């Protein structure tokens, strides 16, 4: 079998079919740096307990899927979602990711990782795998997996559930794992740099421009989610604004009082954050508080734009780093608490598996048919291209051993998918009438209770009979003025979460607290992404302009920093303002652009991976489908979605169709058209659809360029039986660590051998 590299104890098989490097020798005085092949072979053997365990997991997963997909009772219990997800993840991780490891990645623990070779005690340092898992997870997961599934619930729970769980196994986790692995083999090069190395100048440039633009659109639409969650909500505005002084305080504490006490300051910040949420309820109940902090959406949007600029030019220690610590702290906590509450409360779900809107393209939450729009609405959680930016660059510089990349890359993404499933469960545990009243745009509901009741009841949904009282009492229970047309997903998730949490902890009196707690952490995640994203985008721009005007490359040159920051903030700020003032609703027209952008980035990342794998040599060709499958699917989905957005004659779906309809109406001298009641509103629609339509064209063109260059490169590699190798030369490793979360017996034995070494011969380690 050529597909399996022969492994001997010393000579290495560094890449594909190439002859082993004669210089490559591991130190004979040290214990082995990799589990010997014979041991791994023995551990791969099936024993009776193993067969029973995996049989039970498969059975439980099968029963859970049957309950979700086939048994159609009146209700389904949320716990089946947890079982279906966890069992499928376990099977995917245990079996599919190992296939990828064995036939595509082919890691070799005898090779040192960049963290070992280039160890500098800062950027590059070998980090304990369990800690790195947390780091990586905190960097990839944010508000995205919490928002997309909520919107996708419009089509019923089943399509979203299948895509989140199956998508992550075959697509999202594959991308994250392989990008991480190949970036690690290249000293932690970014996806843009890898694109340039592997695909040449055209493909590389297109990939870099696309990532920059996509980053801007993602920041803009995440910011739009925050604006929608905080609009007309004095409680939310107060408590989220308080995160700024809290972060400043933490920054000063860490800089001047107790440097390095990060956990300590995060705990202090967390307590202050809870105090800010509690205080928010009190402030919002006073007349002056309600007056000061009730802000309309446009004001909040400008606030975020100004904030985004200031945060990006201030030194990191003052605002960004402490906010990031707080955000990491909250991320881990929230996920543990949310999973615990869902298992504890086990809500009954009454939402149909497949809803009335799954067959059409005119649902009120987002428009477009199930294929392809469901697959772009849920991006994070199933397949998120943005992760390629994290999985290349930061995380690979911290990996201790090559084989850990499966646990960190594939496992980390499974964890994010699980967050998405929990968000979906929280959203569908709500009454459907309330769900649609919250998520239909103000253009449809008029923003009033009466309007919302009339609109939702006119949708003809089975089992839905919304009353004005339901809306007003729900709003009152969570301490909000109104919950009508609170689009963007965040308020819906917050309400679902408040419902579940108050059943587990605190009762109805705590519903307001839990609602604003959820709003707070979503806002915190998003604002951290906005800060960091603006900085990274500015950095990329400085680098690009620096190629023409070298002065811009100097990151300490303040005017350069200010100019490039201003350009980037203006870019996302413009789209944010368009979204906030959109007469058609905002989220429902802009969110597809977010999903498409994110998935196009995934197409770019997978295209780069495809070319890399093909260049590795002949024995890889028959496994190319592992990359080709998600690449093909994502390419079809995003290109089809883009074509719908560009060419669909249905105005609700096609940006240009809407653009032309409104322009014709204006030309005909009409003063109102559709949901736009004035000439200004009509002009706004014409402008917004122009921007959206143009962005759609630019994105898809860039992605197709990268895709084509990748396919050409891949075809050439297949013809030549491989291609040039851009990996760093192999260096023998001088350390050992287990590959997965739990060490196997063979790994434990090796760990003991290493621990028995005299201290002066042991590698430096961060563990104590």
């Amino acid at each position, binding site marked *: 079998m050529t597909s399996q590299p022969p492994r001997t104890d010393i000579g290495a098989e560094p890449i594909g079919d190439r002859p082993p490097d004669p210089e490559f020798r591991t130190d004979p005085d040290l214990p082995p740096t990799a589990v010997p092949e014979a041991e791994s072979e023995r551990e791969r053997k099936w024993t009776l307990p193993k067969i029973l365990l995996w049989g039970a997991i498969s059975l439980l997963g099968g029963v859970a899927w049957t309950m979700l997909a086939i048994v159609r009772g009146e209700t389904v219990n949320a716990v089946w979602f947890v079982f279906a997800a966890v069992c499928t993840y376990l099977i995917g991780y245990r079996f599919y990711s190992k296939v990828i490891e064995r036939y595509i990645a082919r890691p070799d623990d005898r090779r040192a990782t960049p963290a070992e070779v280039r160890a500098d*005690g*800062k950027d590059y340092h070998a980090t304990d795998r369990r800690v790195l898992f947390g780091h990586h997870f905190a960097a990839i997961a944010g508000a*995205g997996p919490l928002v997309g599934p909520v919107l996708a619930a419009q089509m019923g729970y089943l399509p979203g559930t299948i895509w989140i769980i199956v998508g992550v196994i075959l697509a999202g986790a594959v991308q994250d794992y392989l990008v991480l692995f190949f970036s690690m083999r290249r000293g932690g090069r970014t996806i843009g740099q890898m694109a340039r190395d592997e695909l040449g100048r055209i493909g590389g440039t297109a990939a870099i421009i696309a990532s920059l633009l996509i980053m801007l659109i993602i920041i803009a639409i995440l910011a739009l989610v925050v604006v929608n969650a905080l609009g007309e909500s004095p409680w939310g505005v107060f408590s989220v604004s308080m995160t700024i002084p809290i972060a400043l305080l933490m920054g000063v504490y860490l800089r001047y009082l107790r440097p390095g*006490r990060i956990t300590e300051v995060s705990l202090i910040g967390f307590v202050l954050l809870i105090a800010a949420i509690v205080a928010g309820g009190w402030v919002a109940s006073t007349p002056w508080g309600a007056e000061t902090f009730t802000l309309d959406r446009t004001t909040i949007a400008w606030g975020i734009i100004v904030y985004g600029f200031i945060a990006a030019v201030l030194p*990191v220690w003052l605002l960004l780093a402490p906010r990031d610590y707080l955000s990491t702290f909250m991320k881990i906590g929230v996920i543990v608490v949310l999973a615990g509450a869902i298992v504890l409360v086990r809500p009954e779900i009454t939402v149909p598996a497949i809803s009335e809107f799954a067959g059409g393209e005119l649902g009120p939450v987002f428009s477009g048919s199930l294929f392809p729009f469901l697959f772009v609405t849920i991006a994070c959680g199933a397949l998120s291209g*943005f992760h390629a*930016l994290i999985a290349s660059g930061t995380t690979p510089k911290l990996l201790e051993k090559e084989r850990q990349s499966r646990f960190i890359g594939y496992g980390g993404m499974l964890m994010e998918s699980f967050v998405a499933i929990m968000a979906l469960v929280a959203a569908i545990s709500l009454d459907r009438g309330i769900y649609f009243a919250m998520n239909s745009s103000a253009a449809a509901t008029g923003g009033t209770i009466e309007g919302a009741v009339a609109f939702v009841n006119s949708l003809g949904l089975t089992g839905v009979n919304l009353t004005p009282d339901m809306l007003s009492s729900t709003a009152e229970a969570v301490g909000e003025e109104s919950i009508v047309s609170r689009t963007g997903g965040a308020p819906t998730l917050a309400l679902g979460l408040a419902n579940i949490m108050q059943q587990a902890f605190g009762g109805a009196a705590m519903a307001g607290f839990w609602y604003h707690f959820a709003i707070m952490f979503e806002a915190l995640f998003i604002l951290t992404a906005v800060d960091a994203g603006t900085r990274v985008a500015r950095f990329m721009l400085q680098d690009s302009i620096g190629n023409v005007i070298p002065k811009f490359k100097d990151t300490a040159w303040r005017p350069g920093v200010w100019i490039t920051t201003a350009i980037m903030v203006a870019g996302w700020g413009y789209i944010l303002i368009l979204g906030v003032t959109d007469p058609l609703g905002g989220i429902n027209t802009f969110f597809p652009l977010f999903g498409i952008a994110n998935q196009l980035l995934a197409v770019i990342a997978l295209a780069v991976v495809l070319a890399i794998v093909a260049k590795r040599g002949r024995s890889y060709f028959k496994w190319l489908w592992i990359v080709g499958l998600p690449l093909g699917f994502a390419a079809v989905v995003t290109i089809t979605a883009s074509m719908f957005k560009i060419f669909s004659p249905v105005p609700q779906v096609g940006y240009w169709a809407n653009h032309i309809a409104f322009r014709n109406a204006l030309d005909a001298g009409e003063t109102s058209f559709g949901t736009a009641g004035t000439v200004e509103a009509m002009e706004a629609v014409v402008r917004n659809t122009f921007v959206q339509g143009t962005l759609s064209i630019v994105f898809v063109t860039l992605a197709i360029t990268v895709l084509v260059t990748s396919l050409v490169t891949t075809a050439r590699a297949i013809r030549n039986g491989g291609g040039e190798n851009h990996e760093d030369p192999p260096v023998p490793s001088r350390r050992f660590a287990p590959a997965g979360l739990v060490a196997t017996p063979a790994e434990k034995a090796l760990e003991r051998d290493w621990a028995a070494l005299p201290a002066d011969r042991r590698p*430096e380690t961060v563990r*104590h």
Partner: protein
Amino acid sequence: MADATARRPARTTTVRAGAAASAAVEGVRRGCRSVAWYLRDLMGDNAYQAYLEHHRTQHGPEHPPLTEREFWRQRMDEQDRNPGARCC
């Protein structure tokens, strides 16, 4: 096993229960220590220690390492020049 315990004098059972309780306390304490270790490593509290260890292995005594305060200052300023992305 349960039978054997039942036939023993009561005092031994108490002693055993005490031993089990102290083992449980020890287990909880170890659990707490692991959580604290994980949290501190995850948040990055140990970065200075890691730097010192790295410094000790790479440089001789003629290069004194940075003080804790200097180290954290440099680390933050480094992030200014080299930002890390955060995803959605």
